[in-house]
Structure formats: C-alpha cells, structure tokens
C-alpha cells in the first residue's frame, strides 16, 4: 500500500505540474493584459473555460497565485453559491480582500481582529476607505519593503475580483455589483475576471446593454479538454516511467466516460486513481509492480504462497506449457528457480514496455497523416487498438499500410526523420540497429534525389532520340518498346525503396507491438477488470432496482424464485409482486383493486394450508404486508399519492420500468 501511495503521489505531482504548465501560457497572457489595462470602464477578462467545471478550480488557484506574485496583492475569488444577494457578495469580497492583504503582509494580530470586526458593516464606501488607507500606507512605506518594489509601476495596484462561475450567478446581483463598482472606479481600480463555461454569448444574455457598456471586455480562450486528455494519456500511460499500466478495456471505459459523459480531466484522474487502488488491493502479486531495482529485491524475498500465486497466473501457465518438460518440472516445484525466471520475465516485460512506446509513436507518425485516419487520429486510439488485439491482423491496419505505400517522397522523408528522433530519444538500447537502418533509408533517399536528375536526363535523351529517328520502322519499334515498358510498369527505384520502408515498419510493428495480454506475467502490471470500474464510477441505480424487483433470483439464490422471462412466480418477495402488479396498470392505480390482486396472488401460495377459521387473521396479515410493500414503493419513488380520485395512487414511471 505504501508503494501505491508513493505512486499516487508521483502521479499527482506529475499531473499538477503538467496542468500548471499548460495553463501558464494562458495565464501570462492574462496577467500581461491586467497590467496594461487602465481605462474609464471596468476592465474585464472573460475566460472561456469549457464545460468541465470541475477542472477549473486548479486553473483559478494558479491564476490567482500568479497574479499575486506579479501584480497585485488584492485578489478576491467569488463563487455563486456564496453570493445569493448583493449584501453577501460585498461581505465576501471585503473579507477576502482584507484577508488577502493580511496574508501577504502578515500583520500583527490586532489588525487581524480589526479586520474581522469590519466584516459586519461592509459597503462600497468602507471598501474605498480601506483601499485608500492601504495604498497610502504602501505609498508612504520605505522602499526597502517588498510591496513597493512589486508595485513600482503602479501608483495603485488594481483590485482583482474573479467570478468563478459566471453562469450560476443571479443576474440581479451581478448587474448591481457592476453598476456600483463602476461608480467607484476612480477611487478603486477594479479588474473583473469572469470564468465562463459555455460561450461568451452568456455575458450579453446575462447583462443588459446598459450594464455591459460599463465593461471593457477582452476574451481569452483556454485549451480544450480533449487536448488535456491526450497530453495526460501521453504523460501517464505512454511512458515507461510508471510500472502500472491500464488494460485495454479499462482504458476504453475511462475514455468513454470522459468523452460521452463529463469531459472532466479530474474525473479521468479519479478513475485512474481508482484503478490503482483496485489493482493493488485485489491482485496479490501487485507488490512486484514497481521500479526494476525494487522489483528484484522483492522477487528474492517472495514467500512460498506468493510463488504459488505466480504459478496460478494464466499467462505464466501458458509460458510453462511452452517449455521443455524438465524445465516445466523445475518451474513448478523449485521456488528458487522460479524466482530467477520471474526476474528475467519481469525484465522482459520492462523492455517490452520501452520498445512498445517508441514503436507505437513511430507507427502513429505514419498513420496520423493518412487520409481518413483508418487507425485513428489520436495516439490513444492507436494505443487501444494495439492493446486490444494483434494490430496487424485488423482490416484498418491493412488499409493504412496500403495507403502508406502511396505516400510521396517528401512526406516519407520527414516521417522517417521523426521516427529517428523518437528512437534516439528512447532509452532502450535495442534500437541502435533500427536507427541505423532508418538512417540508411534516409541516405538512400538522398541518393535517389541525385539519381532522379540523371533519370530525367535519360528520359529526355530518349525523347530526343525519338525525335531524331525518322525511319518508320525504327519509330514503330521504339514506340512499341515504350508501350511495353509502360504496361509492365517497371518499378522505379523510389517505389522499390518505399515498399522496403513500409515493409520494415510493418516488421517493427509485428515484433514490438504484441498486445500485452500475450506477454508472460502481464497481470502484475496491467489492471484489466473493467466491470468493477464501471460499477463504481458509472453506476446505474435504476437498473439495479429494476433487476432486483423484476428478477429477484439474481440476488436471492433460491430455486423457488427461478422464473422465465417476464413471468414472476408467486413466491417472490412481497414488494416484487406488488411491483409486478403495478406494472400492469396505467397512470392511476386503484388501491382496492391492487390489494385484491395482491391477496389473490399471495393466497394462491398459502391457500391449500390455510383453513377457514383463521382466514380473518390471514387477511389482516396480508393487508399489513400489502401496506408495507406499497409504502416501500412510495419510498423508492415509483408511485405517489394522488388527489385526483379517492384511494388512488399515481404511477411515476412508464412502460416496463
């Protein structure tokens, strides 16, 4: 578990730094702009951030950090849920600004107390007064203080107010605030930043013309979340750095949740985290999923039970079956030999990863430029395809190779160069040969270029010959020859070379992009139970209720409950029977009829052994059970009491569910 936490941390640091970097450019633009702005109107930056609201937290936090370091200490971050009215908004704003100030300056306690007292009566005038005193203080401070140095360009540093979720603010509050602050813009240099999830149109639909004319808006676009995803996949999955890997199905589930549900990078990371937790929790051999140095130590210290676990792995069994018989026996009985082999296999697995990544990138270079993208545009699609099956057996791969054979030279050369770069940068040392081979291809191409000139000369000369000879017989002969050569389409050297290159790439793919499932001991590094993940992240409570009510046999393993298809046995739990009966009704259900139908069904079970004398009591019990079942259905939200007719309930679902 500790390993896992380490891994988690490593992963998160990586992610956060990445996110920071991706935002930094965007932030710099904004900060620069904040510096420049100085005008009658309130300068406003509208950041279009996309619908993945959950990811914006980080953006805003780092934005305010950057602003704080570079420009101004006065930053307030307002959220819609804190500001139902203008009064709350002002309070929040004041509190944050003063706290900000305190944070930056780290004043003594007295001032802090004073500030918190101030919170009670917050108005714009008190805000401006406060601002004046603060600026005076900063102005009169000695130059040795940091403050003055940071704001030397500014007579008065601006006060930045960030509205995190523009869409969920009430229009009234927003309008009032803008109108009020525009009155004070001279004393209080405000800068507003709106975080917009949808489109900039929202500003105009939220604010009437009279208000939006008070603003001087500039638009900023952030990176789309899809790009985030592809970079994250690039950083997380397609490196040899992390020993933990995702299987094809799991990756597919995560990507599907991202693309079809929420577009939230945060949730993707959460899913990834869950995968790690599940993997390290459920798979006993996951201890070996770590850096190679640690792995060696751990393999040596494996207990006998753990060795047995290794022997039980299906991929290991396959491996054993492919060995000779003496070795098989040794593997299955002697622990020490097994450990040795395991180390070797783990090393193989590691090498496989390294090669895999670089070959995959190489292949991506080729396929991503083909028309119609038979293997997908993004590297993640290619990755999925490679993990799923032997990629060279698929139709898409076949068609993309065919397309690749028709590439022109300049494209081919640039691609080859890219591939060389990839291989050079990859850590695996196996590619020296490959690099050499590719470089050889390149030089050949250069040679070809030179040859092409000559060739042209030759053809030109032949043309000239044609013109020279006026002899009819000769003319006929040469023409025939020309025709012949055209028909047979003798391959030019370039074409030959092109085929050679493509074939070579093909062979690379065949060698290195074997899906992970076919590797021995892949269970240690790969997490592949997609159903668990889907159940925990993307649950369907309604379906669970539906199956439990329709077909209780799924949960209660009793032979009496087994039934075929739509019919339900009368021995099912009460609530199932009541539910079934309610499915047959329309929009309104008469309670009396329902009760009678229920008691007929239940009596059919008890009928034979219930005698007439106790029928009254049985009736009572059935009545009570019916009441319980109906109120349970009400609690679950299938029905609700209706006033439209006496003793009726309304059905809230329709059809069969």
């Amino acid at each position, binding site marked *: *578990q500790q390993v896992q936490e380490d891994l988690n941390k490593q992963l998160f640091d990586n992610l956060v730094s990445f996110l920071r970097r991706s935002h930094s450019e965007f932030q710099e633009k904004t900060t620069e702009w904040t510096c420049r702005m100085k005008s009658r109107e309130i300068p406003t930056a509208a950041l279009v951030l996309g619908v*993945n*609201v*959950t990811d914006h937290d980080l953006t805003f936090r780092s934005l305010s950090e950057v602003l704080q370091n570079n420009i101004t200490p006065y930053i307030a971050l307002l959220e819609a849920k*804190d500001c139902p009215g203008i009064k709350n908004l002002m309070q929040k704003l004041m509190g944050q600004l003063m706290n900000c100030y305190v944070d930056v300056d780290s004043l003594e306690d007295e001032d802090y107390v004073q500030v918190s007292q101030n919170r009670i009566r917050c108005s714009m005038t008190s805000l401006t007064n406060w601002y004046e005193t603060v600026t005076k203080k900063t102005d009169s401070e000695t130059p040795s203080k940091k403050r003055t140095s940071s704001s030397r360009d500014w007579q008065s540093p601006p006060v930045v107010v960030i509205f995190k*979720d523009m869409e969920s603010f009430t229009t009234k509050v927003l309008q009032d605030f803008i109108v009020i602050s525009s009155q004070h813009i001279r004393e209080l240099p405000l800068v507003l930043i709106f975080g917009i999830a949808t489109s900039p149109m929202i500003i105009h639909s939220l604010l009437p013309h009279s208000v939006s004319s008070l603003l001087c808006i500039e638009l900023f676009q952030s990176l789309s979340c899809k790009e985030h995803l592809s970079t994250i996949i690039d950083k997380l999955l397609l490196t040899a750095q992390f020993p933990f890997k995702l299987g094809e199905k799991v990756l597919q589930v995560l990507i599907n949740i991202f693309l079809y549900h*929420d577009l939230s990078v945060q*949730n993707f990371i959460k899913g990834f985290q*869950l995968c790690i*937790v599940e993997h390290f*929790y459920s798979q006993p051999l996951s201890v070996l999923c770590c850096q190679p140095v640690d792995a060696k130590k751990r393999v040596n210290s494996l207990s006998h039970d753990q060795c047995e676990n290794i022997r039980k792995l299906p991929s290991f069994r396959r491996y054993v079956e492919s060995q000779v018989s003496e070795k098989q026996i040794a593997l299955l009985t002697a622990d020490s030999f097994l450990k040795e082999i395991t180390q070797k296999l783990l090393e193989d697995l590691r090498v496989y990863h390294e090669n895999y990544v670089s070959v995959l990138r190489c292949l991506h270079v080729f396929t991503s430029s083909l028309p119609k993208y038979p293997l997908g545009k993004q590297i993640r699609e290619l990755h999925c395809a490679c993990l799923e099956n032997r990629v060279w057996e698929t139709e898409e791969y076949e068609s993309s190779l065919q397309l690749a054979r028709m590439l022109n030279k300049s494209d081919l050369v640039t691609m080859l160069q890219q591939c060389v770069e990839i291989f050079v940068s990859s850590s695996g040392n196996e590619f020296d040969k490959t690099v050499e081979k590719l470089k050889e291809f390149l030089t050949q191409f250069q040679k070809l270029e030179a040859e092409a000139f000559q060739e042209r000369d030759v053809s030109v000369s032949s043309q000239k010959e044609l013109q020279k000879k006026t002899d009819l017989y000769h003319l006929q002969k040469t023409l025939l020859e020309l025709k012949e050569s055209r028909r047979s389409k003798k391959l030019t050297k370039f074409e030959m070379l092109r085929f050679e290159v493509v074939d070579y790439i093909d062979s690379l793919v065949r060698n290195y992009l074997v899906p992970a499932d076919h590797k021995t001991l892949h269970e240690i590094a790969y997490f592949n139970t997609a159903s668990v993940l889907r*159940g*925990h*992240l993307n*649950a369907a*409570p*309604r379906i*669970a*209720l539906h199956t*439990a*009510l329709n077909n*209780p046999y799924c*949960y*209660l*393993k*009793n032979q009496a*409950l087994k039934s075929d298809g739509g019919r339900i046995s009368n021995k099912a*739990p*009460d*609530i199932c029977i009541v539910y079934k009966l309610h499915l047959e009704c*329309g*929009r*309104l*259900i*008469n*309670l*009396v*009829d329902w009760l009678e139908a229920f008691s007929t069904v239940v009596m059919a079970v008890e009928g034979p052994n219930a005698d007439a004398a106790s029928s009254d009591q049985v009736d*009572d*019990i059935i*009545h*009570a*059970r019916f*009441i*319980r079942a*109906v*109120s*349970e259905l*009400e*609690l*679950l*939200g*299938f029905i609700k009491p209706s006033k439209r*007719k*006496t*003793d009726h309930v309304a*059905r809230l679902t*329709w*059809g*069969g569910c």
Partner: protein
Amino acid sequence: TLAKKIKEDKMSNLVEEYFEAHSSSKVLTSDRTLQKLRKRRLNQQTLHDILKKAPLAYAAEIKELNQQHESLFSKWMLQLHLGFNIVLYGLGSKRDLLERFRTSVLQDSVHLVVNGYFPSITVRSILNSITEEVLDHIGTFRSPLDQLEFIIKRFKEDSSLELYVLIHNLDSQMLRGERSQQILAQLSSLPSIYLIASIDHINAPLMWDQAKLSLYNWLWYETTTFSPYVEETSYENSLLVQQSGSLALSSLTHVLRSLTLNARGIFRLLAQYQLENKDNPSYPGLSFQDFYQQCREAFLVNSDLTLRAQLTEFRDHKLIRTKRGADGVEYLLIPVDDSTLTDFLEKEDEDV
C-alpha cells in the same frame, strides 16, 4: 448494425410508452374505495405488531447477501482514507448494513450517524451536532454557510481531527434540497471527513450536478439487501394507514356525542346538504344566510347569534371550515370526505 437497430427500436418504444401513458387525460379505473371494504383501517401500531409476527421470507438468502456486502468493509475503509466517499444503492434497507459497519469498524473512532429518513432533520442540525459534539464549540452561527466555513477552517487547521459521517437515506425529503446537498457536498470534500451514504429513490442521482458530484467524489456500491424498510417507511404517511392528521369517523362521532341535540341537528343539516351536492364539483358550500334560514325553519336556532356561536364551536373542533366566496359571502364546508360523512349519517340514523 443489428444491435444498434435493436437499441433504437427499444428507445423509440420507450418514448411511445411514455406518450401512451400520458396521452389520454381519462383514466380508466374502478370506482371502488377503501371505505367500501369490509375491513377497518389499520393504524400504525397494529400494523407494526402484525408485521412483526409475519415471518420474513427468504431470510437465509438475505443473510447470505448481507455477508457478501460485509466482506467489503475493509475495502471501504481503505477507499475512504484515500479520499473517496461511498454511496450505497440497491433495493432493500441499507440501514442495518451501515449499522453493522459502524459497530464493527468504527467503534473506536469519532463518527456521526444521520438518520435522513427522520422527518424533522435539517442540515443545520447536522452541522450543529458537528460543531457542538465533535468540535466542542459553543455558540451560534448566523447562517449554515458561516457554520460550514467555521467547520472547514477547524478541520484544516487541525489535521488530527477525523470524522466518519454515516447518512441513511441521503435522498430523503428533508435533505434533497439543492442547498443542503451543496453544504453536505462541501463537507464531504474535506479530506478528514469520511462520508458513507445510502440512497433509495430512483431519481436520487438527479439532485447532483457535476460540481457537486466532483465534491462528493462518490464510489458507487450496489448493495441490494431485500430487507424491509422498517424505520424508513414508519414516517412515510401511507394512504392505507389511518392518518392522525385528517378527521376520522371515530373522532367525529366522539365530538358530536358531547354536543346538545340542537347542535347535532345543525351539523346533520349541513352534512346532508353537502352530500346532496357532492356530485357538483363547483359547489362552494352552504352560505351562512341560507344555512341560518334552514336552521330556523327546522327550529334549531332562534337567532343569528346562537348559530354563530355554535359554528365557532364547530370550527374550534375543526368540524367545519369557512371559505369566503367571490361575492364576499361566507360559505360553510365540512372538511371530511364524503364516504365518512355518509357513514356518519347512517350511524346517526341507527342511533335515533
């Protein structure tokens, strides 16, 4: 492809079914009412007693299911500590399961149990119990938001504080509001507060938008238990159970027994008049003037004032309701359903 086509067919079927269900405003059901049933209505207590006597079906299988769920407890603990929160769904009461989780795992740690099904629970009471019991803070807050801020601050300052919150029925009537969910979500997003909740309503996930979902950071667990919702439905006012809120026949007769003969006559007159007009949906009630006239004719009152005094007494016992019509005239109505009223009149006739 075939699978897609089938899916599409299913989809369109579903849509059609919806419109089928909601197309005709006329609903065909029989007119029978529970009143006509020979059986008397059961009240809460007897219902409870009867159900206790009735054996629970499939007890063994249910127990097995529960044991399956219980084996997950240690996993839940691990996941809670890793910053996830756990939500349980599925048919059957999850109360016992959570209770067992509490007793077996959380015995030594600080935990808070919230009974969401309790009809008078509010977010404020949850927050209060955190501030008062867990944080030992005495004092009041102006708003739940302030209180929340205080809690967040305290938990951030003191990393040794840990709190497990178990919420039964997070989707209950009182907690399903937007604001309370927001507050709970913010609470649950604190790293040292661990939340386990259960939901039952089919539309429960509708109350969370993306922002709340990411605050909650749910891990979903299907825990179908099939055990009856005993506690949860005991507060649910069912149609079939005798309700204390509305006027029942027995209380009606009790009150009227204690009145004078003339007063009873007055009530009878009003009841009869109401029953005569029961098929008229726009019947506003009997106007005071008409009523006075009729009472005089039956020699039940002799002056305007006595009738008014009598009516005030009725009103105090909630036997009648007055409504002012569009023309400013007072109309009198008996707020009891017609079948009870008929029963009452029949009984009166027997007595006389």
